[in-house]
């Protein structure tokens, strides 16, 4: 069991920079989810931690122990790092039985045979695969293979678990189930875990904290709700949440003393508190973000509303995603009932106060 610290990690492949100046601290026993779009460098970070690739710059610490620091010519080989890894394709050896697969890491470490047996059987019981131990993996289902891969990781009593999209190859239903089980297992074992995924729902539901990556660097790290409610920039706001946040481009303008945002179809006045924080900065072009649940459809015209067309009403379980459009710009609202409207209706819209985010159009950083 250990905490993990990454300082200034940089990894280049020839010309492409896969990860640049990446910093991360994972607490002991924490379940950290590393999430981001495809190609953003998640696997690179994970492989660096495991020692499967040589990094160009930076330091990696396991607790108090420095395991990787190219500037100090220090590199601990993966065999000696004491991490366990679950791969996306599970990497289960097809020629060995399930038992041998799980025993393999202990055998190469020359653990006594009786102890191997004991630990493998214990791990198999924990994962509910003890009846499969004598089978060859070939004929097993995806869910069973995934458990074997997990089993091979936990028999080791590793310091750190690394998992690279271990649920990506499961079908939707199994994935939800595996999510819960995996999280429970990690809590029971209390092993520091870094879990890679590109699925933000997986990230939101599983992580103690989420580290969101983009283009080789860290965008934001924090508990799931913090990322959801206090995104640092446009990218984070856009990536987290489903359906995604609605975004409108606009200009900051002064009108009748107070400051507001001109969205072309609508003038959105800012509260005095907001305007104060904004006037200091010299920004005129902004992006307004509003989560679908904060887009409200109202019955009657009131002040501070605008009109939009209903494009489509999409039932998703107990809620409805209402696809709307104003001046050619589509956006979404989530409503608990859609009985009052039909496709093609023209309705009045308002944004829930205090729930809008304003970003600088140029840098993407949040302003308020």
């Amino acid at each position, binding site marked *: 069991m250990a905490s993990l610290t990454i300082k200034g990690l940089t990894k280049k492949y020839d010309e492409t920079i896969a990860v640049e100046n990446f910093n991360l601290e994972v607490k002991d026993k924490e379940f950290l989810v590393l999430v981001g779009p495809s190609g953003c460098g998640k696997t690179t970070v994970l492989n660096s931690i495991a020692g499967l690739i040589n990094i160009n710059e930076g330091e990696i610490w396991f607790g*108090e*122990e*420095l*395991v990787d*620091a190219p500037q*100090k*010519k*220090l*590199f*601990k*080989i993966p065999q*000696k790092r004491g991490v366990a890894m679950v791969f996306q394709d599970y990497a289960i050896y097809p020629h060995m039985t399930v038992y041998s697969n799980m025993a393999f890491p202990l055998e190469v470490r020359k653990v006594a045979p009786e102890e191997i047996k004991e630990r493998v059987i214990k791990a198999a019981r924990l994962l509910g695969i003890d009846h499969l131990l004598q089978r060859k993996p070939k004929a097993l289902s995806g869910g069973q293979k995934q458990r074997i891969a997990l089993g091979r990781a936990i028999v080791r009593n590793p310091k750190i678990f690394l998992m690279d999209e271990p649920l990506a190859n499961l079908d939707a239903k199994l994935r939800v189930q595996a999510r819960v089980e995996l999280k429970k297992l990690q809590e029971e074992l209390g092993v520091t875990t870094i879990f890679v995924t590109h699925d933000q729902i997986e990230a939101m539901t599983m992580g103690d904290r989420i580290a969101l990556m983009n283009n080789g660097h860290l965008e934001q790290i924090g508990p799931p709700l913090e990322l959801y409610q206090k995104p640092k920039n446009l990218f984070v706001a856009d990536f987290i949440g489903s359906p995604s946040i609605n975004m409108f481009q606009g200009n900051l303008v002064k009108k009748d003393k107070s400051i507001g945002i001109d969205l072309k179809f609508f003038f959105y006045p800012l509260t005095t508190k907001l305007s104060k924080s904004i006037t200091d900065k010299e920004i005129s072009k902004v992006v307004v973000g509003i989560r679908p649940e904060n887009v409200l459809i109202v019955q009657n015209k009131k002040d501070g509303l605008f009109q939009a067309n209903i494009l489509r009403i999409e039932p998703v379980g107990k809620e409805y995603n209402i696809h709307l459009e104003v001046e050619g710009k589509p956006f979404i609202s989530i409503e608990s009932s859609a009985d009052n409207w039909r496709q093609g209706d023209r309705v009045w819209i308002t944004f829930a106060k205090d729930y809008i985010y304003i970003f600088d159009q140029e840098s993407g950083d949040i302003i308020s």
Partner: protein
Amino acid sequence: MRTLNQNILFNATGVKQVEEGKKEKLIALLVILPGILSVFIFFYIFSGWNFIISLTDWEGFIPSYNIIGLKNYIQLFQDPLFWTSLKNNILLIVLFVPGVMIIGLCMAVLLDQRVRAEGIFRTIYLLPFSLSFVVTATLWSWMYSPRVGTINFILGKLGLTSLRKGWITDPNMVMYCIIIALIWQFAGYSCIIFLAGIRSIPHSQTAAAMVDGASNFTIYWRIILPQIKASFITAFIIFMCFALKAFDFIWVLNRGGPGYSAHILGVTMYKETFSFDKFAYGATYSTIILLLSLLIVVPFLFRIYKEK
């Protein structure tokens, strides 16, 4: 202070780890080294050595020799036998390489038509390629035999008595006889190369073209053939290199005869070296063969691996 000390401590163990990783790779390299080293000596050092020999006047097993520079090459370019061999070799290349590729491609396309018992046809087509050149040369001496041979017999049966010939005993015919026999031997191999190429194209592509109403001919001409460029290149390199180094078949058939009519570079090289003990002059021939082969292979090889 503590962290500093720790750093030094860990640095020390860390360096050991680096070396441990390196040591493992080193051992692995040591395991493959005898293999790789002997391969490199055999293929590259020997090639260089062969070139050096070609710059000497070394004759056979007498150990002493002098460096005479490029004299052997000058002699070579004035030697009518060299030009005869080169001419015959070019004839072989020009007819054999396209011939075997076209016939192999035809076989592959025919086999691609959802043929019943495709595996049996494929196996039969490949059978000639399983034979040693010594065997095929023996078989074809019998086929071409002027008095009792199969070919003259069949021509007689077909009433084409006028076409009956001396075949391999006829200096004007022998190269063509050899080319036909070699095409026979290699056609199945060529077929396998092309069939593998055709089969590597996803079925969905041809299915899509069929749905679009493309004729069978269009599918091959417009969709399949352009995509098996790699097979063409592979086949081309393999058959070119074979044609440049060919020796066994012709030697066993009739020692490159009658006369010099079937001497190609490989045959003349052998004869100069081992029949006349002119080792240095023979080495000159092999250097030429090597240069021609490299000229064909190297550009393709580097391009193929650069792409990866």
